[in-house]
């Protein structure tokens, strides 16, 4: 979540800055193909509320 609940109130969380090995891992991460194929095969219906 972009915000979290802490000490009884909601506070916004800063977006991350990823560096070093973590950055390398994130850039080289693999796309979860099975999950993506499942999502793309579905025909989600969205209607305006």
């Amino acid at each position, binding site marked *: *979540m*972009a915000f979290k609940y802490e000490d009884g109130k909601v506070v916004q969380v800063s977006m991350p800055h*990823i560096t070093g090995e973590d950055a390398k891992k994130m850039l080289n991460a693999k796309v979860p193909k099975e999950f993506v194929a499942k999502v793309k095969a579905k025909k989600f*219906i969205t209607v305006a*509320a």
Partner: protein
Amino acid sequence: MPYQFNSYSASKVKSEKRSLLNAIDFSNNHTRAEREKALLSQAISFAGNNGSKIYTIKDTSSILKGILGFIALSASEVMIDKTKKPVVLIDLLLVNNNYRSKTYEHLDNSKISQLLLEYAAFQFYEVREHIGVSYLILYPDGGKENINLVEYYKSMGFTYATRKHEWMYMKL
């Protein structure tokens, strides 16, 4: 498809703020319920100012009644080394307490949270049709202490972005 998503415009969110806040049952645990209500309220405030987009999911077969859950999405960016990467951010994912942790055969044999995450990925690809985005990211409620939630997100394909174990991402 036995379920559908409702998208809420900012004006609709503003006019229906109260009914949205009362649309689902929160946790039976009072402290947790307060937390969930506060987070939903925050997401609704964001959405009322176009800072986030709220969607709800409903069972069109009416086996499960009312709103099954919420998901709120927004555009953001993360810094990876010195490069800014555009992302779709899951601001909120909240399932009606009555329907949590259960798998429903008539809903693609899925949990509600699973359908919401799949929908987030679907919307990610819709966005990508128009503008570049690289990752789907989220900040697990309760942080790394919420082990069950973190493990669930991992099982869906999310990975911790850093060794601080805060943000999680899925490359899409």
